[in-house]
């Protein structure tokens, strides 16, 4: 079995296949904790975790908070408006102050790509990336992959289609890195204006046609459409996006009979997913949320258990 030696979890790009599997397997054993009447194990007793969120988040923040609490860690939440940070204290200063209070793990969500990387370089505490701009969202991809593996019992050779705003999606990027390493075939489907240049070099199939993305897919991972993309002229109207790319039961007729419908949440009902699909028999959206806690418990546990002698920070 591989060992976990990393101080931080910043993305899936830098993880090996074995490291990803190690996290998923560790998550398996934590999944059961949340089903007990007493949902708590003492694994992280005495450890301090800070949820450091520069962007609004309900589910990711709650998921990390529950994961930490079920491991008996102490956790506090700090929410900052990142535009206020520009004017006042720098990210680095804020982070060093948090570190000075002897925090073991900082879970960070930020609108700017690379922000957690910068933080990880400047503090000794471990840093977990809970989403940095359009760059990566490793724990979301891990819980997506965990859920696929749970339902399909394998990843190798599966056809996974990621549909929506690929250009601005950290969920898409982390999923691509993870799924490709584990042997899945990935298709990304977006309107041409939301398909980032060079994405095919990551080994994915690209298409603008939703039907092509649906046919033959074992998994459809539907991304949230940000309403503000309309004002940036990324597409004419939300209405047209919903007509062209929204998944409804009609379009699902092209899908395999055992397709999984996933969504990282929160769902814009009636835009990227119709309610009957979101709540329908193929949907595993709430399983993703349940698994998210187990995956984050695994990540917190592994990160906190790295060898004490590790002083590789600069």
């Amino acid at each position, binding site marked *: 079995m591989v060992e976990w030696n990393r101080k931080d979890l910043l993305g899936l790009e830098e993880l090996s296949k074995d490291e990803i599997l190690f996290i998923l397997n560790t998550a398996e054993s934590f999944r059961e904790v949340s089903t007990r009447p007493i949902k708590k194990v003492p694994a992280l007793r005495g450890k301090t975790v800070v949820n450091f969120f520069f962007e609004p988040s309900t589910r990711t923040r709650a998921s990390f908070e529950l994961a930490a609490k079920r491991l008996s860690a102490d956790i506090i939440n700090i929410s900052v408006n990142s535009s206020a940070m520009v004017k006042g204290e720098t990210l680095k200063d804020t982070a060093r102050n948090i570190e000075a209070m002897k925090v073991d793990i900082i879970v960070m969500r930020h609108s*700017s790509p690379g922000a957690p990387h910068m933080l990880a370089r400047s503090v000794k505490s471990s840093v977990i990336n809970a989403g940095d701009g359009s760059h990566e969202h490793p724990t979301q991809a891990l819980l997506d992959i965990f859920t696929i593996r749970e339902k399909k019992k394998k990843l190798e050779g599966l056809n996974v289609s990621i549909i929506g705003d690929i250009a601005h999606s950290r969920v898409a990027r982390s999923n691509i890195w993870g799924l490709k390493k584990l042997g899945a075939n990935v298709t990304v489907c977006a309107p041409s204006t939301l398909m980032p*240049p060079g994405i095919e070099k990551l080994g994915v199939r690209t298409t603008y046609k939703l039907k092509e993305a649906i046919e033959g897919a074992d998994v459809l991972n539907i991304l949230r459409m940000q309403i503000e993309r309309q004002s940036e002229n990324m597409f004419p109207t939300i209405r047209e996006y919903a007509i062209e790319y929204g998944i409804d039961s009609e379009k699902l007729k092209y899908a395999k009979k055992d397709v999984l419908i996933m969504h990282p949440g929160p769902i814009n009902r009636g835009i990227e997913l119709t309610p009957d699909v979101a709540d329908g028999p193929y949907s595993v959206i709430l399983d993703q949320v349940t698994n998210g806690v187990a995956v984050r418990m695994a990540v917190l546990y592994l990160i906190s258990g790295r060898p004490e002698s590790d002083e590789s920070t600069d």
Partner: protein
Amino acid sequence: MNLLIKNGRVLDPKNKIDEQLDILIEKGKISRVAKSIKEESARVIDAAGKIVCPALVDMHTHIRQPGREDEETILTGSRAAVKGGFASITVMPNTKPAIDNQGVVEFIYSEARKTELVNIYPIGAITKRLEGKELAEIGELVKSGAVAISDDGMPVMNSHIMRMALEYSKMYGIPVISHCEDLDLSSKGTMNEGYMSTVLGLKGIPAESESIMVSRDIQLASLTGARLHIAHVSTSESVELIRNAKKKGLSVTAETCPHYFTLSDEAVLNFDTNTKVKPPLRTRDDIRAIKEALKDGTIDAISTDHAPHTEAEKDVEYDFAPFGIIGLETALSLSYMELVKTGFLSLLGLIERMSLAPAKILNLQNKGHLSQGSDADILIFDTEISWVVEKNNLESKSKNTPFLGWTLISKPLELIAGGKHIMKESRIIKNEPR
């Protein structure tokens, strides 16, 4: 005190000299360049084994005085110039206040005189407050000593105003320097658009954001017959457009900077904000095109686009960091390594692009060559010495360079500006009082 530089390998692109000669300097001017000069009254500088050439001229420098003296002052910028082998630098007009009136031009000349180091030439604004709306008083700027006009980082988007600026500039014989960028196309981009921006999730700036405006400005130069100078060329498409413009005989010149032929967008991989610069670092293909363009003369000059920013400004999230990197102290070494060592340019060709060519574009007739009677601005450097770029060996007040930690080859040793020996063995020495 007269100076005699002996036994160096003298390179003078204008007079096509590349041989071992002595140079006699009298009263701030070059009085003789010949073999084995004997002159009892002159102090001798032994340059055996070294390169002796016209001091470098930087036609694209940001000095932050007035306005942002925490980033760079005329004094610290001058010292950085000396360390890099430059005896002439420019001040781009995005100071605070902007160089859009005679008062600021005169202030810069006055501060420069106090430092008694290098020649400093202000570049005037095209439009008032660099807003792109109303022409600045270009005539007055030129009369008070501005050597060119530019709105640099705040390019004139309105084609009519740019046309009028070009038309008007013809009366004064000065070049209009254009930072070619379609601001709408760049939008909120922070790096080159392509595979790397996709992987990093950073918003991209397409290459066309530059070349569209290069194309517009070349067409306006054709329409007006004015002198157009394209700043910091970074893309292969821009190179192609400039090459064609020159073939047509238009008065178009161009510069690039060492980072555009040294680093590609792959350097952004670790989110180092010292790689954030405008135009952004491009691709390996662009690097090759730029080197070829320097070789065939499509790109006339190498400038630094020295753009100082404090550590506090740069030590933030990539999206929030300002654009710009410093370059005065690394330009010669990087150019030597990337262009001469690799065979794209001869040493003589490199010196031409870093001294004579920018001096000609800026109409500095007595700079950039070693003709008898020209200004005694002379650099002596050694192509054998290597050195490491470290924060504490940089004279610039700001340390924002992506080359920190790099080992560079070739180093400026002696600098003479206006006949005064101001750097000796790479140390800036107190110059003689006037």
